[in-house]
């Protein structure tokens, strides 16, 4: 039985996350764990007091004050979280998901994801969350953190779900790309879809061989595969392909380079997720 983890927040991506999760169950009986993390409590809730004095029994007073502030805020976020999860659960059940587990947790998102991850086959998350700047099309900050921290494939949901007929594997011969090919070749979810596998770069015998091997592996898994090797800038070529061939889903290895390098020269992964308006499955 497939086990999915769907990360939900208050953004409009949450509905799409549910729909993508339903697609990922492929109609088979599956368990979807809906996870909403309330996050670490910030200090912003405290009233400003720079008096620098200690009044009589100031410790107890301060504790009461902070506790009651957190309490009222905690109740609010808790109620909101419940509503979000209930809506998502209803959506999933309606779509025929066999079992939905609802989890509302306090704490850090990454720590929580890692806690539940061992019991999960695929994580579903939206491209952007509540905190992201939609106008600039920036990606949610949690997305990269989850993908980098997690050892499981991550399905990044686009803004709205569209039926998936054709998917493209961006193949660079790396370890994570091989992981992606293995996963797809053995997963019934992809068996009925049209598969294209694309390597962008110089046409060397080595690259050609790796691509052919991957394609062979996919064919052995029963997929209908079109393999191509094109020269050019990876992100541009892939984005063009996605557009011109009407690709519905992109599969790729993610964040092959260190954070520092990404910080300086930018990350291809981030650029791909951002520029292609379709869902992406990431492997690391």
């Amino acid at each position, binding site marked *: 039985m497939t086990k999915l983890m769907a990360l939900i927040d208050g953004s409009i991506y949450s509905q799409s996350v549910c729909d993508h999760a339903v697609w990922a169950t492929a109609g088979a009986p599956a368990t979807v764990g809906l996870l909403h993390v309330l996050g*670490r*409590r*910030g*200090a*912003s809730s*405290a009233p*400003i*007091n*720079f*008096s*620098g*004095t*200690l*009044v*009589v*029994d*100031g*410790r*107890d007073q*301060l*504790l009461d004050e*902070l*506790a009651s502030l*957190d309490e009222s805020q905690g109740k609010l976020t808790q109620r909101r979280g419940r509503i979000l999860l209930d809506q998502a659960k209803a959506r999933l059940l309606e779509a025929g998901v066999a079992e939905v587990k609802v989890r509302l947790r306090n704490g*850090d998102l*990454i*720590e929580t994801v*890692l806690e539940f991850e061992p019991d999960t086959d695929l994580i579903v998350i939206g491209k952007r969350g509540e905190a992201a700047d939609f106008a600039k099309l920036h990606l949610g900050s949690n997305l990269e*953190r989850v993908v*980098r*921290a997690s050892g499981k494939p991550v399905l990044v949901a686009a803004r709205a779900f569209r039926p998936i007929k054709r998917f493209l594997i961006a193949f660079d011969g790396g370890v994570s790309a091989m992981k992606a090919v293995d996963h797809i070749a053995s997963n019934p979810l992809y068996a009925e879809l049209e598969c294209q596998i694309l390597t962008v770069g110089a046409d060397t015998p080595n690259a050609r061989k790796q691509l052919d091997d991957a394609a062979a592996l996919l064919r052995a898994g029963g997929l209908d595969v079109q393999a191509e090797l094109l020269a050019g800038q990876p992100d541009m070529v892939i984005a063009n392909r996605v557009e011109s061939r009407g690709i519905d889903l992109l599969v790729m290895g993610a964040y092959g380079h260190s954070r520092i390098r990404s910080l300086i020269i930018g990350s291809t992964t981030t650029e791909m997720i951002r520029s292609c308006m379709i869902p992406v499955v990431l492997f690391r």
Partner: protein
Amino acid sequence: MNFVFLSRLKFEWFGNIRGDILAGLVVALALIPEAIAFSVIAGVDPKVGLYASFSIAVITAVVGGRPGMISAATAATAVLMVTLVRDYGLQYLLATTVLVGLIQIAAGALRLGTVMRFVSRSVMTGFVNALAILIFLAQLPELTNVPLLTYAMVAGGLAIIYLLPLVTKVVPSPLICILVLTALSLGLGLDLRTVEDMGRLPSTLPIFLLPDIPLNLETLWIILPYASAIAAVGLLESLMTAQIVDELTDTPSDKNRECVGQGVANCATGFVGGMAGCAMIGQSVINVKSGGRGRLSSLCAGVFLLIFCVGLGDWVKQIPMAALVAIMIMVSIGTFSWSSVRDLKLHPRSSSIVMLATVAVVVTTHNLAIGVLVGVLLSGIFFAGKIAQIFRLTSTLSQDGASRTYFVEGQVFFASVDGFLAAFDFKEVLETVTIDVSRAHIWDISSVAALDTVVLKFRREGAIVEIVGLNEASETIVDQLAIHDKPGALERLMAH
């Protein structure tokens, strides 16, 4: 897991940048008078306390285990240095500070932070009350045999400190107290003791220097007793403060890392000419109250402190001591747990005795470590006394009156042995005696010996003695209850 570590590190440092910087500023302003006052207690130049506060605050910000906690030169450690400084001088104090750090690092490495669980609530309350009293007592030299004007200045300062927050909470009222009193004393040309009279202030950034002492065993024997006491008190106050900050912010902390952090901070502080310190309860509360939560707040407090002192040294030395005394009285009042006085009657008498004993011992010895030790011992004894009451001996006599079965239930250990022995009737003439201990817990060697005594006594009276259920009862006698490897063992242990 590396990723979790990084994300936590980021949160601890940059989770609350604005709040941390502002709170650091407020704390730095409050730290200056305290650092000067505690230097005065220890009998060294204010510069020693100020360098120490800078160095300790900055280093614990990086290596400490409790983000948002403020550490610096403190009263608790300063009172322990008085005789050392008087008899041997500053260089020995610096060497002691380094040794304090080494001892604390060792304590952290040995995971002594977990020993804090034996320090009960009452002992902690006693500790803070005693600390408050010590801080207040340290102000007395500034309040005795002084012109009447000083009292007026202190009263005025206290009025500003307590009344100004009723009007505005945007500016630190201790700062206003210092500004107003300094302006008054300069403007009116009042003849008052000022910070300048207390000794030298820092004029440069701290520099690395080795304590100028002979490196031999004799030196070690001089500084070791001081260093151990200071290390113990420093750790106690730091761990207690960490717990208070844990409670206030509802976040966990790493107590053993805090021990090591305090040690590293003290070690380094000895080499830049500072005195040993530890976490400060009052300042940490002020920090949280001002919105400080992360490591940045402690770092900012230290850096701002140094900037103020070096940059404004000419002004700082004009501050009348009366202003500092007023602030220290405020700290003392704020540190004291007044509700504990009200609760004296409400709480169980044993708790109140523990609290009062801790306070009394500290005030007479000026050593918080001894006070805490006495408090912990007393609470242990009281606890043993309470548990000893969970004990019952019943018996049934056979029809013919020739044999009796005793049923032992409850906790048998050193404190309940007397009651255990007294409950048997050795005068009764019996042929057989059965002692059923299957519903008792035998905790230690004292209870085994007591059981032996009972058996021997009955035998001497000519009875045949049989003990039932000894195996179950003595499962508790080993030091580590090996309950983890048998499912349901805890239930079985608690049931019989």
